């Protein structure tokens, strides 16, 4: 039984096969990267894992349990958190509030007690805040704690979205292009954090990324996707030099 696997996953939008019979499996404690040209179906796979799309065929399994039919809001409870390619933060809230929303699945206090805000409720809130503060320390966000998202630059938002996913305390973290829009320095930082997430926090990472320097630096294993199909898998080097991958990016007789 592998930690996380997708098996013969397919999804078509009308006549377009966005994902076509894709399978892979990853182990616990791994950083597993999906590369591939635009429109290869990478984000579509993520959206199927998040249950935003229902696959037309195939199965998604996490720790042996079939999660293909789970509701979108159950995925986080199962232990899978994610970030988005185009940053989906709550723009009118502060950084702290955004991170606190990441604690949603750990809330045990019934609504009536939230209304009254009794001492037990306050203790629960304080505990959440302590957890969030750990993430703020981890990602060095202390400086921005009380800023509204709308006032923050892109690179910082990327970090906050990562932080929000960490507040969920997931076992598996899905990162959709964590380095897109970041400058080389920020990308390097992102690499260090992904390493730390794997080694210090013990969270497995499934990542989509175009920036090959980051892919090379952090990935344990890589697969390449083209036209919804898995065309190569192995180490970052192996995948990069695979003739089908080269053909997929540069064109030619594949």
């Amino acid at each position: 039984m592998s930690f996380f696997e997708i098996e013969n996953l397919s999804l078509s939008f009308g006549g377009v096969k966005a994902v076509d019979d894709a399978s892979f499996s990853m182990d616990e404690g791994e950083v597993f990267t999906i590369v591939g040209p635009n429109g290869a179906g990478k984000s579509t796979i993520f959206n199927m894992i998040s249950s935003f799309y229902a696959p037309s065929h195939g199965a998604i399994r996490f720790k042996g349990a079939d999660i293909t039919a789970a509701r979108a809001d159950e995925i986080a409870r199962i232990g899978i958190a994610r970030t988005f390619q185009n940053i989906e933060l709550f723009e009118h809230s502060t950084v702290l509030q955004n991170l606190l929303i990441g604690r949603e699945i750990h809330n045990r206090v019934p609504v009536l007690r939230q209304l009254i805000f009794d001492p037990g409720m306050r203790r629960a809130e304080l505990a959440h805040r302590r957890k969030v503060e750990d993430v703020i320390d981890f990602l060095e966000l202390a400086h921005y704690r009380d800023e509204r998202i709308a006032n923050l630059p892109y690179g910082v938002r990327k970090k906050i979205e990562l932080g929000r996913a960490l507040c969920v305390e997931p076992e598996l973290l899905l990162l959709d292009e964590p380095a897109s829009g970041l400058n080389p320095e920020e990308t390097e930082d992102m690499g260090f954090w992904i390493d730390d997430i794997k080694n210090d926090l013990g969270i497995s990472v499934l990542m989509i990324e175009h920036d090959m320097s980051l892919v090379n630096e952090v990935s344990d294993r890589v697969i390449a996707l083209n036209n919804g199909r898995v065309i190569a898998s192995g180490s970052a080097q192996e995948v990069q030099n695979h003739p089908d991958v080269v053909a997929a990016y540069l064109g030619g007789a594949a």
Partner: protein
Amino acid sequence: MRVLFKTDYNQDIKFAKHGGYVFWYALLLVAVFLAPVALDTYWVNELTRVLIYALAGLGLMVVTGFTGQVSLGHAAFMAIGAYTHAFLLTQGVPFVFSLPIAALTSGIVGLMIAIPASRMTGLYLTIASLAFAIVVEDLIIHWESVTGGNRGMAVDPPALFGYEIYAAWEYYYIVLVLLIISIALVLNILRSPLGRAMLAIRDSEISAQSLGIRLARTKVLAFFLSAIITGLAGGLFAHFIQFLSPETFGILLSIQLLLMIVVGGLGTVHGAIFGAFLIGLLEASISILKDWLPPAIGTQPGLEPGLFGLILVLFIIFEPEGVYGRWVKLRTFLESFPFYRRNTFKRQRSYLKTERMR
């Protein structure tokens, strides 16, 4: 400019963030509690009206301002609260029981509406809420045995433990205390997981879901709470106007409530209160204006809704953040004087939101 040094997580949780809050809000409390002493009956009545509007607006704020579900049917919840309360009073149920039952009835109707409505978004939800309001209005007209239909229904004065309340100032205090309690409960929700989930849904449903927030449940709860608060306002309104008739709770009232929270400032508790004061003031000044204007204009039937509409449009164009947003800007200007930059509150979009899933 005040800089807060945070040494304790409670500092973020408690209502009064610093001494300034304590001072100004204590002053405000003293002012509203002493108001009936200083004002004559006419103005105490006007103030009571404003407080009831504020309570109804607070209810609408929960669902529209915080959860982002625009409702054009909240007059119906006021109607349900008002009629239930008035009917229970005629059946001999005492005021202290009748009012909470009325609020809860409104809440339960809200719950029933929200279960199908939580599957709708945006404009469709607004249209559905409008339809709901029209159905409720028709129901009131036709259910004559309970509501008196178009003939209307007289409301007995409130009685607290056998003591009948006639004086304007006595009723003012009842409304004031209930409003303060409601505000406290809403503020509690806002600093709790439920409130954060509501704000999350307003800003991005997709990422709210990916964080484990149950969309339908949160929206239904928001509607429930909102309908309770607005229903409570309805029950209080019944005594205030003393005579209920279906057209009191028509579409105009729904629009007025929405106007209140938009003009006051969407997404803030302050907004509901500011909005209520503005609308109350506006109503008073329109009725004064009517005497001054030439009769050809002053007696036009569409004058009031027309002016309301105009003000709503102007606010949306020039100050979408409402009176409260304007106030925050003014305060920042004063605090940071002379270093205020004109673009402090300019939103910049440094990137495109493409491929957003709906």
